């Protein structure tokens, strides 16, 4: 074999290994998702045969319809989750953007130390917070209410929002604000008319993070909900471990609950990836 052929062979082998690696990656990542999609459109009979009878002729909407129509089920919990997630997100954005702006721009003494303390709170496992919060909320009769959930969710959403926004506010050139002030704008006017309009992308990114985190939250919801404000994750978990589980409906419910978040993650992936590289790697 000549030197050239050996070299070409080696390159071919290397390319082959990378393609093989990508295929393994695709199968590993996609197989559970594909099975989720298939399960949600297969009838119960096909799912409980061994092996499962994956025949496109059997595809049906019955699982999905069943989950959506069932009076008790998913629809109520969608409303609860939407209320809690939207309220948490708006409060976190309102409070967090003002605080982040103040720390990034208005030279609050000790602002950076404050931000580190805010970050440090994220080290605490939820169980540390929720034991006293449960006692306080049950004294205030706020167990099983939207307010109770929103209050607790702010504990992990607000710090993240503050960190994302502070990083962005620091990157705005100070000249822009100075120009606004020379034109006679007050601090609040500068913030509202100059800084906020520039900050829509990071506000969106922070909002998406906040929404996804509150929509998916399960641990606090298990502890703080009883019957009135069951959120989507609680409903999903109730499908499992039922005496007679309809696997198709269980998986259809899990799929439907995940769709809003997956769609948001894909639409806003640029911001999420930006958040990763800016916030996580450099911060």
């Amino acid at each position: 074999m000549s030197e050239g052929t050996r070299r070409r062979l080696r390159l071919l082998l290397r390319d082959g290994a990378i393609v093989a690696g990508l295929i393994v990656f695709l199968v590993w990542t996609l197989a559970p998702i594909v099975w989720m999609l298939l399960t949600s459109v297969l009838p119960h009979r096909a799912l409980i045969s061994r092996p499962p009878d994956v025949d496109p002729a059997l595809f049906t909407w019955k699982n999905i319809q069943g989950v959506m129509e069932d009076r008790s089920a998913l629809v109520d919990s969608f409303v609860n989750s939407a209320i809690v997630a939207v309220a948490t997100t708006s409060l976190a954005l309102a409070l967090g953007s003002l605080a982040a702006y103040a720390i990034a721009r208005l030279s609050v003494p000790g602002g950076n130390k404050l931000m580190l303390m805010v970050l440090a709170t994220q080290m605490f496992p939820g169980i540390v917070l929720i034991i006293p919060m449960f006692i306080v909320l049950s004294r205030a009769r706020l167990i099983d209410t939207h307010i109770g959930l929103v209050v607790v969710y702010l504990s992990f959403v607000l710090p993240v929002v503050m960190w994302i926004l502070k990083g962005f506010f620091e990157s705005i050139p100070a000249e822009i604000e100075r120009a606004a002030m020379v034109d006679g704008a007050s601090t609040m006017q500068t913030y509202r008319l100059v800084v906020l309009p520039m900050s829509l992308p990071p506000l969106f990114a922070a909002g998406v993070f906040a929404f996804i985190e509150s929509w998916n939250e399960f641990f606090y919801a298990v502890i703080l909900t009883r019957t009135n404000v069951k959120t989507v994750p609680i409903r999903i978990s109730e499908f499992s471990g039922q005496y007679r589980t309809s696997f198709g409906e269980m998986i259809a419910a899990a799929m439907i609950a995940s769709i809003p978040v997956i769609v948001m993650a894909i639409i806003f992936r640029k911001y999420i990836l930006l958040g990763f590289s800016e916030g996580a790697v450099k911060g």
Partner: protein
Amino acid sequence: MTEFRSVPTLADRRRRMGYLLVTPAMLVLVLVVLVPILRSIVYSFQRVRPEGGRFQANWVWFDNYRFMGSDPAVRRALRNTVFFTVGEVVLVIGIALGVALLLDHPFGRFGAFRIILLIPWAIAPVANAVLWEWILNGSYGVLNAVLLRLGLISHYKIWLGDANLALRMVLLADVWKSVPFIALLLLAGLQNIPRYLYRAAKLDGANAWQRFRFVTLPSLRTPLTLAIILQTIWAIKVFDLIYVLTKGGPGDRTLMANFLAYRVTFNYLDFGYGAALANAIFLAMLILSIIYIKVLKPGAPRSRQAP
């Protein structure tokens, strides 16, 4: 004599405004984070039980912490948590690094790959748990069907009911869900490595392994440290999967620290002991993070752009 009235300067006014804007957020964080943390330290030295609809608290000082030493559930939870955390960190970081390297290669730079990677990350943790409960089902699960077809097992296995397999299966489900985030984190780190470093290493005659070992890995030190710390914390905190898949069973073989603290507090209603366990979990995470930082010494990350 004329009195000087001090006129607030612009800087004064901005600082005053700053205080005003910071206060609401800080007030909320004090109320929902700081106060509860302090309360739970106090509770851990008390016996706190709901009696007749009211919470009664009595000081027992170190009794809760002393009881941990003799509680067999704590020992089981500790063993399971250590196994799970080590397995999770090693597998997730290893697989995620592989995925990140693949997606950084010219063949892997299709946007579609990154979108695919986002899906397991975005799926609600509970939806993920339910999905794996179905995949691992002992009677109709697709894992059984596939492995049987491939001849790797001779009969259907009850994955989650088997004392020796259950924890590994929970680990599998959690690794699948956790790889994407860490892979994206490491991918962002890879893309920050200046290409000229590779060209320089090539000129110096470094082969592919040497380039990985002496250029890629050192440049990834900060994101890798972050990934290891985050993944450790998440592994110790795992709850949703245990709650849906096994509730700690069979026979406490998948009982983990966080689930134990939950069970003690909200099933056995022993709030004081639960708080003590919760604080012990926090201490363990804190100590591990400090050790990681001391050992791995993350530096200031290199940036592609000029500062």
